[in-house]
């Protein structure tokens, strides 16, 4: 019960942060963004407490529902963004991140108060690790794509010699590219480990490491794409515009595929 109240509070504060970021973007002023970052931080803190309140009674982290997965997704996005903001001065990127976080939270809230106890098959340490790591990896890719979009806008402005108010307001290309680098660098290993954890668990409960169910296939595809991007970045030097374009494109394609494949997700591996 406390968990739900905290979750809703977090949702409202995320929403407020997104609105103020919107104001900041609209007026091209940095001051509101500063305020919004504070709100985002507060929302993240409340959100964290909501996890504690939800998990504490169960005695262990329960991350088996769509609710939990999306909620963690949103949490990681917000947390990663705030961390990056400390490292690079990309205050305004929050204007792109916070609406996504909000949307995730709204969708997550549909499953609010749903089943807290998982079926026995989906309980256990490995399942928790699997979900948290995979979702965290994917959240990092989402941040990379937001940064990619902003990079392309800024790149277009500078290249087109239209370095007006908007260009001054947006973060620098160097910082946005650094975010792409960091997100790929951390996202790929996280998703890899998450996948491995899931696979080990599958071996235990289903008897085989791999099932070729739509969701596994989709995740494999996502993993392959991002591993490829990371490789290109490190080995060949896909930086700047190329990296931004690909990060954004891959994310959008994967999102579309996910939407399309959703109805076919089998009972075995779906979100409860």
């Amino acid at each position: 019960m406390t968990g739900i109240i905290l979750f809703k509070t977090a949702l409202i504060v995320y929403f407020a942060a997104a609105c103020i970021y919107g104001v900041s973007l609209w007026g091209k002023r940095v001051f509101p963004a500063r305020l919004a970052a504070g709100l985002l931080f507060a929302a993240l803190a409340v959100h964290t407490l909501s996890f504690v309140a939800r998990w504490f009674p169960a005695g262990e982290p329960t991350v088996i529902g769509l609710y939990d997965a999306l909620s963690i997704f949103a949490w990681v996005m917000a947390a990663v963004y705030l961390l990056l903001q400390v490292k690079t001065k990309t205050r305004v990127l929050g204007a792109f991140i916070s609406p996504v976080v909000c949307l995730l939270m709204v969708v997550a809230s549909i499953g609010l108060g749903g089943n807290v106890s998982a079926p026995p098959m989906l309980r256990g340490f490995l399942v928790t690790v699997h979900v948290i790591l995979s979702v965290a990896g994917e959240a990092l890719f989402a941040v990379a794509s937001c940064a990619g979009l902003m990079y392309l806008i800024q790149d277009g402005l500078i290249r087109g010699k239209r370095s007006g108010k908007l260009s001054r307001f947006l973060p620098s290309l160097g910082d946005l590219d650094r975010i792409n680098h960091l997100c790929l660098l951390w996202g790929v290993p996280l998703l890899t480990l998450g996948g491995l954890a899931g696979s080990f668990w599958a071996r235990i409960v289903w008897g085989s490491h791999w099932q070729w169910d739509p969701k596994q296939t989709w995740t494999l595809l996502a993993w392959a794409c991002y591993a490829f991007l990371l490789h290109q970045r490190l080995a060949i030097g896909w930086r700047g515009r190329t990296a931004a374009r690909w990060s954004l494109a891959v994310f959008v394609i994967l999102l579309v595929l996910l939407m399309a494949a959703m109805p076919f997700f089998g009972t075995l591996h779906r979100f409860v």
Partner: protein
Amino acid sequence: MRLVLLGMSHWTAPVEIRERLQLACGEGGPAPAELLGIPEVREGLILSTCNRVEVLARVADGETAVERLKTFIYRQGNLDAAELARCLYVHRDRDAVRHLFRVAASLDSLVMGEPQILGQVKEAYRRAADHRTTGVLLNRLVHHAFRAAKRVRTETGIAGNAVSVSYAAVELAKKIFGGLHGKTILLIGAGEMSELAARHLLRQGVGRILIANRTIARAEAMAAEFQGTAVPFDRFPETLPEVDIVIASTGAPGYVVTPEMVSAALRRRRNRLLFLIDIAVPRDIDPAAGEIDNVFLYNIDHLQEVVDTNRETRRAEAEKAEGIVAEEVAAFEAWFNALAVVPTIVALRGKMEGIVRGELEKSAHWLAGFSEEERARIEGIVDAVVNKILHDPITGLKEESLEKDELPYVAAVRRLFRL
């Protein structure tokens, strides 16, 4: 208010006159204390920068004081009166306040929005304060000017964008790279313009500077000055993979930097961002180089365009700033007027109270016939009558202080009641 401001600035006086005054009024010049030597001057402050010399003073008698202050300035700069009269402006009271606020907010500067002027006003104030030549009015006024300047700075974009070509280049570099720490720049051609841009970039923390010039001696001289490295001119393409910003300004008739050079360098630098600045006419860098991914090419016209738009923006922001200044001038006037009214009200009340006490004392013998309670009631009635009579005049005085420039009521009340 009896506030006067006399001075000359780049708008009114040629540099030959300004510099004579400036030498005389600068750091080694007369102490603001000398202003107080003029009998009419009660408080004073001297502001002297490379673009203006101004004297601000609170005076007892406007016109005589202005004449004497003019003589003061005339003596300092060793100028003749005719010369001076052409260049000097005199602002009084509200105009003086507005002028000071506009100066502090950098609205009167040659480059509108430049940040140094506020520091210079602060310095002038510090000098005056050290010599104890400021009092209630100037202290309040100058602090109010700081406030107005701060508001203009934070609430408008007047200082927000570069209005010189070399600074526009620095701003662009920041937009591309984020921080400039540890970045390397290459100057191809060691001209005056590139030197200026390099200076700006170095101040922003650029790490290393390479200089390629056809005359190697010139490159070496400049390298020594900037603690950089001179590179033989024909070997500069080899340095492209390791530099982040290139400033080209040679006198070459054709393109010195080709797209092939740039793409080869980009491969070797693994597509790290490269910012090419071409300030040469005719151009040094083939425009096709700017089409390459992760390469940004700006030539002198592009930079000039940035500067022009920025100037345009500044002008628009200046209107907003003038509004803020007007508000602050009004706020200061309200404070000042209240200041003049308050003592009058206090004096008026004091006089009435004195009359009441005096009359009650005269009738003390007769009053003794009443009981304690009755005496208190009589005193109460008299006080109430006085308060009721005073209520409207006092309200009127207070209102007047916020509405009108002159304070005829204050003067009238003082005369009528012989305060």
